């Protein structure tokens, strides 16, 4: 498991020189006009961070790849609405979050499948020495399964804020809601999770 300090922060963008800035602005303007080469350049620059963001939400590498493709298709489709004066990364992340949310909602309707990857996550975790021995493997498994049953909107807010420790401001921007709404969603997710665990006879 990576150290918390190793987790990439999306706000840690290196400073650009004036030439780089001009080049970047030019690239974004060309993308807005529908230039496919500019779009490919942006794709090459941002595919890894977009994939990483989606993976944090869906926690399934194959699905994250498909959703990265879906996200860049949506980005291409919306190129005329992009404002070059604004940053590309937060805009892409918002579209990626929407695509991941749609995927989670669609999966939720498929009975029983939602918990599968979480079961695998927990099985993997059981073999890791970093796991807290004070928390039983069964508790972790049932927590993961209970988490998979939460409404997708609450899950995204909780997984990004609590598990991935992303700043509330960035989660809010990605979800298109206020910071207060993110905190409320996290609180509701935790409360529902606790209720579900109690119903299963697990006292946290």
């Amino acid at each position, binding site marked *: 498991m990576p150290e*918390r300090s190793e987790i990439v922060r999306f706000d840690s963008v290196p400073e650009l020189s004036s030439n780089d800035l001009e080049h970047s602005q030019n690239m974004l303007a060309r993308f807005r006009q529908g230039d496919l080469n500019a779009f490919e350049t942006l*794709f090459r620059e941002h595919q890894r961070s977009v994939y*990483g963001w989606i993976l944090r939400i869906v926690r399934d590498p194959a699905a*994250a790849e498909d959703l*990265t493709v879906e996200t860049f298709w949506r980005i291409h489709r919306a190129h005329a609405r992009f404002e070059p004066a604004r940053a590309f990364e937060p805009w892409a992340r918002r579209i990626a979050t929407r695509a991941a949310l749609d995927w989670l909602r669609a999966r939720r309707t498929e009975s029983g499948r939602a918990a599968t990857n979480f079961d695998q996550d927990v099985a993997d*975790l059981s073999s890791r020495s970093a796991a807290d021995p004070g*928390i039983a493997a069964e*508790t972790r498994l049932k927590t993961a399964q209970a988490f998979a049953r939460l409404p997708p909107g609450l899950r995204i807010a909780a997984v990004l804020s*609590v598990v991935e420790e992303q700043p509330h401001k960035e989660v809010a921007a990605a979800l298109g809601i206020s910071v207060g709404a993110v905190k409320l969603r996290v609180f509701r997710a*935790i409360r529902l999770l606790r209720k579900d665990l109690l119903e299963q006879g697990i006292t946290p």
Partner: protein
Amino acid sequence: MKKQDEDRIKQILREALPPVDSASEPSRDLWPAVLRRIDAEPGSELSRLEPGRQNWFDWALLAGLVVFAVSFPATIPVFLYYL
């Protein structure tokens, strides 16, 4: 819910779902898949190479509306009212 209960649930959740490795990246180049997705889109560059295919339905719909309007001219004000 007490603060300590909330913190305990968060701790269990972090244990149940470990953070994703920041070095994660796609297992393959996704650009060809993005291009295929774009080309499959109606009105894309690929679709524009086949102009007869892209909007026959639009023309058929328009023709149907014209025929309907000519056949029943009294319905035109009703349509306009609801537009």
